[in-house]
């Protein structure tokens, strides 16, 4: 038993932190938030060159061939830096689905380019209602083409390829669903950029009209592959959330040390001190749940599904809690555009819904605990 990342993994984390401190200060996040560029291209390219994107992609497919634990520590640093790049879509979801279910040809073709950052991928699953269930997936697959629409799709405006959850057989059940890989740079695709609470990660609606598509994994396996992919991504995104929570807590702490009111640092008022202590508690619980998630992911443990849902609920709440109270500690300053507090607040709330909201993950958690209990 050893519940800590190894010395090498901690070094990698330090390296990622230094790299991001240099290449992705919050001014870089702001540039995306305020400007017309949808993501930070230079940072994205750099992350590819450094091998961070390909950390968990096998060497034979152009990655570094490290493991999930390494990807977890990188994810934490990306979350801490609020990196305005499509890592979760391209790496945590698309590369992972291809690793798990792609054909040899698909892996050869796409993984090296995803690892280098040359190609951006995204997962397109949501349709009108906001939450994905087999019964509300209507986008239809016929004879190797897709027709229908997905919205919102995170990074949908900038992605080159998408993995799409689509219905190949009529009805409402999960067996009629499959995953398809689609090249988004083709004439049957129309994209509309959407306004969102966190423009540092852009989103789009994607309309498919007889768009050419190829199966990923077997027909009828779509729902299972999708759910498994969400679990893995929940753990990796959970590390982003932990990183963001920690940073928001640190900002609040630093401000409380430096801001004086009534002749003393506001951190000496218990109302503020205890608020920060509670933020520390939720961040710590999320981190500890995350360590178990990382372990389950890296070993493919039977507890993976439970660990993913636990971590998802825990890290979502922790990031939201820390980000919102960080504003409170900052008083009026916290509500200004110029202070970085709102960047964390925005991101925490984007990530809270991006893989499905709390309700959905709470349900999954209870279902999974029950299934385990019954076994």
């Amino acid at each position: 038993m050893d519940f800590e990342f190894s010395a090498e993994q901690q070094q990698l984390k330090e390296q990622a932190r230094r790299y991001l401190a240099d290449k992705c200060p919050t001014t870089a996040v702001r540039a995306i938030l305020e400007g017309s560029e949808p993501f930070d291209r230079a940072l994205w390219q750099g992350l590819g060159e450094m091998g961070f994107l390909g950390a968990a992609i096998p060497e034979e497919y152009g990655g570094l061939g490290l493991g999930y634990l390494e990807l977890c520590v990188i994810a934490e640093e990306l979350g801490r830096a609020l990196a305005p790049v499509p890592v979760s879509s391209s790496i945590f979801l698309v590369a992972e689905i291809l690793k798990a279910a792609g054909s040899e040809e698909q892996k050869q073709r796409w993984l090296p380019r995803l690892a280098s950052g040359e190609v951006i991928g995204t997962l397109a699953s949501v349709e009108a209602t906001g939450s994905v269930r087999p019964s509300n997936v209507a986008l239809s697959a016929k004879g190797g083409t897709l027709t229908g629409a997905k919205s919102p799709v995170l990074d949908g405006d900038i992605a080159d390829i998408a993995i799409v959850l689509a219905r190949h057989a009529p009805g409402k059940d999960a067996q009629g669903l499959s995953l398809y890989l689609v090249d988004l740079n083709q004439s049957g695709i129309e994209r509309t950029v959407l306004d969102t609470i966190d423009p540092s990660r852009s989103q789009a609606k994607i309309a498919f009209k007889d768009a050419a598509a190829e199966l990923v994994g077997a027909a009828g396996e779509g729902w299972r592959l999708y759910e498994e992919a969400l679990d893995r991504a929940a753990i990796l995104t959970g590390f982003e959330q932990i990183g963001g929570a920690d940073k928001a807590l640190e900002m609040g702490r630093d401000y409380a040390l430096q801001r004086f009111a009534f002749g003393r640092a506001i951190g000496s008022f218990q109302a503020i001190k205890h608020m920060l202590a509670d933020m520390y508690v939720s961040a710590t619980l999320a981190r500890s749940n995350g360590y178990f998630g990382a372990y389950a992911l890296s070993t493919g443990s039977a507890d993976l599904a439970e660990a993913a849902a636990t971590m998802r609920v825990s890290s979502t709440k922790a990031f939201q809690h820390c980000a919102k109270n960080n504003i409170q500690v900052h008083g009026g300053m916290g509500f200004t555009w110029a202070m970085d507090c709102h960047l964390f607040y925005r991101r925490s709330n984007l990530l809270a819904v991006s893989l499905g909201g709390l309700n959905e993950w709470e349900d999954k958690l209870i279902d999974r605990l029950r299934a385990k209990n019954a076994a």
Partner: protein
Amino acid sequence: MNFDDTPHEAAFRAEARAWIDANAPKHLLPHLEKAGFGGIELGGLDPMKEAKAWQKKKYDAGWACLHWPKEYGGRGASPIERVIWNQEEGPYGALSGSFIIGHGMCGPTVMDWGPEEAKRELLPRLAAGEDIWCQLFSEPAGGSDLAGLRTKAERDGDGWVINGQKIWTSGAHYSQWGILITRTDPDVLKHKGLTMFFLRMDTPGVRIVPIKQANGQSGFNEVYFDNVRLPDSQRLGGVGEGWKVSLTTLMNERLSIGSGMSAGFPDIFEFCKELELADGTLAINDRGVRSKLAEWACRQSGLKYTGMRAISALSRGENPGPENSIGKLVAGSSLQEIAMFALDLQGQSGAISDPKLAAMTAKFQAQLLRSPATRVEGGTDEILRNIIGERVLGLPDDMRADKGIAFNKIPTA
């Protein structure tokens, strides 16, 4: 990052499991599995007698106080081995409630600061469950502000005379020994004038008066000291060093009551799986119920893995730090919230605490009445938040009215 046993750990686990399987008091198991929060009931058997018998058996076979050195009655086991043992001991661990203070706090304090002869004589008896120890720290004027304590120890030839009063002393009424913190010098700063001792609870002049608790039980006591004479050989640490010595106790307290505390999720989960709501659905299928259960599940596992991270840090040779304060802070309010929620789900029957009529044999009603104490004993929620804020996050100390002032000049009510 590895949650699996190493081969060595697996061998240790197998050995522990085999021994427990061959020796545990299996006839008590049905009662222990039902054991509520804040007390055990063994179907008419005397819990103290059964607890001592199990402790002695463990001691004789080398399974008592695993983390203590062998020469003082322990096993010299690693922190991880101790976790494994606790996992394997499972429900039988509930028998050891009366030993927690002695094994977790008093023993380690005596071990660090006591005279060698006393350690060799007393610690093995403590490990074997032959003696029970209590912690004589809190006073009417010194709870959260422990260093505000007033019990006096004065030199008398080559010994000491103690006068004053302690309060909230858990188990004083069944303890043979106690560790005692006193004021030896009121003319200096309050943390400077303290000195620690250990003493037999039947020393002449010690009077123990049980206190009836809000939940009807009597676990703690007032303890009066009326010209109690102690030899200097019963001093722990130097004169005026009492605060430093008490920190050993409190640091160990964090570890023994904080880490590994349950937030109470398993009980409420079981309960909601069975309970039918008024509309005929099972509680566990209700969206609102699920949301609450998910929160408690996350706290339960978060605490479990936080505890394991602390154990990992210990086995790397780090000291148990102030971050361990989160265990009791999270568990205390969770237990209380869960009890209230369970009552609420039962509607108007929720208030019934007759074990024959109440769901889960009134476990939640008992938990409702005991959990407020968890948020107070061993450091209140507010003090724990201060510890986290100041010692983990590095925030400034509270402004205080007693800073830089000799103890006898500090304002009182």
